């Protein structure tokens, strides 16, 4: 379907179907497996690389190392039991999973979520984005062996997890947004403590800018690396920062506002370079924007109010027959859930649509061709690959 405009003289020949004919006995090529455990992704996924020298000539993505099948598991659980299950669909950023499941259930059951709960949901979603970006932004430099910023970011991330612990009772699996509402109001003094943490992020942003984005080594390696052509964005279904780095505005919060995002003032950053550097830059701006959004939420949200709408008895809550697709913006891009119900107390079908599926299979396979082995991790991180989201 797509032709790579590279000189293929040193690459294996292609057959009529476009598959590479690799003759390993020629001693020209080497199979190199990267993964399933490796830096660059949260979870396990393997890349079967064919290299010549330190150059990648073919890449194949292999998943299947997580042995999970949560979508199937959820078909055997009641809706309330799905709630602790669905969060594991993306470990690094579990909150959008909770939000999507709850939102789907509420839409099909016709439940109106109280206003306070909706603001709290926004806060949890943005805090989740914040903690992800605090690792991802400096983590991009980490893939080029510059680990210092990663340590700075991780420290602040830990403090954000402290806030999550206060608010939700958990650090990683928050289990906060459940069908009908959320599981608690802000604890006393929470806003002040969160604001203290946000100030650290304010300091962190210029520091990491100086460390990374004005770093000659980082620039040299990241600029021009793994450029995603603009036309791929639609053809492959590329979302979030990867799309915005190619100059295409894709942010569900802006294009299809949900919760109270329409009351928040923000403008996602876009650029045209579409390389690893650009994608990282978009995330740096996202991090800055997230801090701003959180401050707006804290200022606008009501202090008190109902946190949960009354629901039927969750022990045998039957949702009317129907289907729905709900989406939100995760740190990786548009994240959606398709839920089909058949009138019973369990989902008939749950299907999660995350950006990692296309990013880490079709797109990554193409982008890795012609890249150096040493750049593999950088390219993966720039696409924000989350294998649990592929192998769901």
């Amino acid at each position, binding site marked *: 379907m797509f032709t790579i405009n590279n000189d293929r003289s040193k690459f294996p020949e292609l057959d009529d179907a476009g598959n590479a004919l690799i003759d390993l006995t020629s001693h020209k090529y080497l199979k190199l497996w990267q993964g399933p455990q490796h830096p660059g992704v949260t979870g396990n996924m393997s890349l079967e690389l064919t290299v010549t020298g330190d150059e990648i000539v073919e890449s194949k993505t292999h998943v299947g190392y997580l042995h999970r099948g949560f979508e199937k598991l959820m078909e055997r659980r009641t809706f309330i039991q*799905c709630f*602790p299950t669905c969060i594991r669909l993306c470990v690094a950023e579990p909150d959008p999973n909770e939000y999507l499941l709850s939102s789907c259930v509420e839409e099909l059951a016709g439940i109106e979520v109280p206003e306070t709960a909706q603001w709290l949901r926004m806060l949890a979603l943005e805090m989740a984005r914040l903690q992800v970006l605090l690792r991802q932004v400096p983590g991009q430099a980490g893939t080029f062996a510059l680990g210092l910023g990663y340590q700075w970011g991780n420290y602040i991330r830990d403090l954000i997890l402290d806030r999550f612990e206060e608010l939700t009772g958990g650090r990683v*699996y928050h289990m906060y947004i459940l069908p009908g509402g959320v*599981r608690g109001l802000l604890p006393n003094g929470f806003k002040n403590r969160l604001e203290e943490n946000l100030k650290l992020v304010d300091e962190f942003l210029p520091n990491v800018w100086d460390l990374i984005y004005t*770093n000659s080594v980082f620039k040299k390696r990241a600029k021009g690396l793994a450029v995603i052509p603009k036309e791929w964005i639609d053809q492959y279904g590329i979302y979030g920062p990867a799309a915005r780095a190619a100059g295409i505005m894709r942010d569900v919060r802006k294009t299809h506002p949900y919760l109270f995002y329409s009351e928040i003032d923000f403008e996602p950053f876009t650029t045209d370079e579409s390389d690893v550097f650009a994608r990282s830059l978009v995330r740096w701006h996202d991090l800055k924007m997230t801090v701003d959004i959180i401050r707006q939420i804290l200022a606008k949200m009501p202090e008190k109010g109902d946190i949960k709408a009354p629901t*039927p008895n969750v022990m045998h809550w039957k949702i009317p027959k129907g289907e729905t697709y709900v989406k939100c913006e995760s740190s990786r891009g548009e994240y959606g859930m398709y839920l089909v119900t058949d009138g019973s107390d369990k989902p008939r079908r749950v299907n999660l649509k995350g950006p990692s599926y296309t990013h880490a299979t079709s797109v990554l396979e193409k982008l890795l061709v012609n890249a150096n082995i040493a750049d593999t991790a950088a390219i993966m991180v720039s696409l924000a690959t989350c294998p649990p989201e592929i192998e769901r």
Partner: protein
Amino acid sequence: MSLKDVLTPFTAWKRIAKEPVTVIDPFNDRPGADRYRGFHQNDVEKCIGCGTCEAICENEAIDMVPFKDPISGDSGLRPSLDYGRCCWCALCVDVCTTNSLKLSNEYTWITTDPEDFRFTPGVDKKSWDENDKGWVKPEPNYEFYNTQRVEMEHLHPEERVDSFIEMVKGYSHEQALAEADRCVECGICIATCPAHMGIPEYIKAIRNEDLEEGLRILYETNPLPEICGRICTHKCETVCSIGYKGDPLSIRWLKRYIADQVPSERYQSILNTNDINNNGKRIAIIGSGPAGLSAAHYLALMGYQCTIFEQYEKAGGMMRYGIPEYRLPYDQIDKDIDYILSLGVEIKYNTRVGRDITLDQLSQDFDAVFSGTGLHLGRSTGIEGSDNEHVYYSTDLLRQITEGKDIEVAEHIVVIGGGNVAMDITRSLARMQKVKYGKVNIIATSLEKEENMPADREEVVESREEGAVLMPGWAPQRIEIQHGRPTGLHVVKCNSLFDDTGRFNPQCDMEVKNFFEGSMIVQSIGQGMDLSYVDEKWMEGLSFGPRGRVKTNEYFQTDLEWFFMGGDIIEGPDVIHGIANGHKAAIGIDRYLQNLKD
């Protein structure tokens, strides 16, 4: 690439003088947040072992394990955790019906034995048992089920005191569905119900809108659902687990809903009782009260030919002749009884055993005899003036009202007694006073103080609503008689009913006196049994236990192996015990006649 790009990253060195942020001893220095979802705690005294935590756990990490012997309202089980499976989502805490389960904010636990991670919180002592922080169910307005019951609609007091029209209206379809939705299916009620009805199952049938299945479940253990759905003492509701946070489920009204909705013509096809094989054996049943009818129903299903001997004109016993029509309409009694008769059960009306036929005769003509003759004899207070002709027993008056007899209704009436029967006669007479005199003027007095009155709370409240005056805590002394007619009741203040050893020994303050005016006095202080129908030769073969009750085995078989007894004369008094006894006795009779041993 500029020189700036080479130099700027070195600004990171400015942080070299900063304090390190690493926590040196993470195990001891950092407690979890106040809301942290750490290790489980369970208040085993508060916990009733309902198992809702086990049901909601998506990981099957909770097992209910024996903790103590089960008692009414407590399964005796307690949740045991397997930390190899738990994901600390705390749904078990949020759903806990008694709020006994919580999570502490403790999160470190080091042990060398993996088996340790399976434990029963509250039973196996842990260092975090006293930890008062951690996850508790969020408050307020955060519930996984509706804690408020769907209120049953009643006739307005002013409307109902004019007639004997049924005062409880019954649930509509929507109301029944909403109420049935509240059940968490813990089954605590099953053990407490004397008949061990499949309560969660029939409530589930309502939710599934499958009332035929509901009816089948009802008839497995209770052949009088219309009656029980109205006047059962609903012991199940007193232990209902969701009653700890709010109102218990309206189990009784839901049972009534099923029975009300299914037309009687369809009973036989739904219950599949069109074709019962007769085994040729005959059983005599004395009395057509709940025990007798229940025994007849289950024996008939087993193929026995049952004949009920009933001393009155109609069947139902105390259900018809003791309970007023406004609580239990006669057509509803007939609906249940007609179905039992359709199974081939025969009733000989106006036939009193001991008068029209002897027990001895029955023992010869039938393979076995079941007696459920109930408590029909009124008890007298024995005070001065109680032998006056205008002093009545409540049981007699209630029976005569049912029979349509013209009973005396005075303008001022005093009822002695604080039980449900006393409330029944008070409210019946109040209605008759309203019709005859246009106003209610009736006083009901009891030894017990209001909080200890044996009558159901709703009976007390509704009596007042209908205009009766309740005077609890007074002991009757003497009925004042003038010109051959009572003028009122002299009472003294009653301070306590039982002594330290728990014996009935009323203590009264003779100085605090009162006089309740009334030209008609009704005594309703309990009923006694009448065993005069048991011939002397058989009486000798029976043995007696406490309170003069005949001793029976678990199948209600007396020492005379062909003679079974049940109902109020053995257990109770209430309808549901009678039904349970009748069912068990039917099984006992079948075992006896088939010569089955354990």
